[in-house]
């Protein structure tokens, strides 16, 4: 674990080389966030680089109210969303009030039946089939393990909204994966 506070203080004093430590620590996380929004490797690389440059330029305004990573995520998220909007692609964290939960037959059996590796493959496939906004929130919470508070800061949404959207996204993913399982779209 790196001592972020110490590194940030060094950077503020003008030590650019210390920034390498932060870049190495977070570039993969920021890249995967950017990729899930812009959906293009080159653009995601550019966005990642830009996010780090912006963060460096504004590091004096970082007041430790959130973690550095959360602050960096927020910069990258805003950058990518603006980029996507400018390009004319739609990326909206819409509030789907009409979302209905269906309790169908019992499904835990089928989940237990399938090998873990195969389940992971199906979930990966399912993630590609759900909405971008659902995938993003699952990625932040369930894959990267960020807290609700961090996600709320990154997406500029109230914590309650984050929770309800995550709930909806998980349910959507579950439904998609279970449909694939029911269709036998896997190797038993």
């Amino acid at each position, binding site marked *: 674990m790196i001592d972020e506070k110490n590194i940030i203080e060094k950077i503020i004093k003008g030590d*650019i080389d210390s920034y390498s430590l932060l870049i190495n620590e977070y570039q993969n996380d920021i890249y995967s966030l950017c990729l899930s929004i812009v959906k293009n490797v080159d653009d995601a690389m550019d966005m990642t*680089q830009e996010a780090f440059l912006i963060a*460096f330029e504004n590091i004096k305004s970082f007041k430790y109210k959130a973690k550095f990573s959360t602050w960096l995520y927020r910069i990258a998220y805003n950058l990518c969303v603006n980029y996507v909007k400018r390009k004319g692609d739609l990326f909206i964290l819409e509030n789907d009030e009409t979302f209905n939960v269906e309790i169908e037959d019992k499904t*835990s059996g089928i989940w237990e039946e399938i090998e873990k590796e195969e389940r992971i493959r199906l979930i990966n496939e399912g993630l590609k089939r759900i909405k971008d906004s659902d995938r993003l929130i699952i990625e932040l919470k369930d894959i990267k393990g960020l807290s609700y508070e961090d996600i709320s800061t990154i997406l500029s949404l109230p914590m309650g909204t984050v929770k309800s959207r995550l709930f909806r996204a998980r349910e959507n993913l*579950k439904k998609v994966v279970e449909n694939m399982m029911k269709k036998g779209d896997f190797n038993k």
Partner: protein
Amino acid sequence: MEKKELIFNIHELIDSKKEKEEILEIFKNDEILLDRYKSLSIMLDDLKNIETPKIPVNLEKSIVKKLKVKQRRRVLSLSLSFALSIIFLIILFFPSLDKKENKILPFVFNKQYKYTISNYVTMNNINNVEITLYVKDNLIEEKSGYLKIPKEEFELLFETLNEKGDLIINKIEGTGEKTDYINIKINYKNNPKISFTGLMGSILPYIIIAILFFIPLPFLIKKYKKWKLY
């Protein structure tokens, strides 16, 4: 409680730090919710094992390099601004850069051998006054002379001129004889200091034009870079 709320509770319980056994105990009487909890918790456990894409190229070096170039440029532009400010201040206040000009004040001769000054330029910045005399006399030969007097003396002379409106000829050395006509030219070294208002009057329009010209440049460069990036 609505189905939606019940399922939302499952998500909440999974996200809480509660032990699995504790949660199972909560749902033990509702098979459907228990099943829902089991399938959901398997999915969430599997999600933890999903690998996110890794960056294809390490950006560390390129970012650090860009930052260093930016910093160098910033230092350079700061030095440049500092140097320009210094030059500006030197121009503003350094006396050796003062303008020097020669002016000739004509004195008009009259028949009573008196000379009246026709115009006068402010003496504020005059150090020395040089007077050239040219005498054409019927009795003696043509003569010309050169007289250099300190400013203070000339000021006294000028005060006299200013009060009386003329200058009596015999006050000028070497002109005691009768003359037909005498030309007196005053060549004085005018060292006007560049005053702030004077400078502003002459340089300010250029400065304003330069500022107006350069103001949009950083914005345009930034815009161009962004468009290039996106």
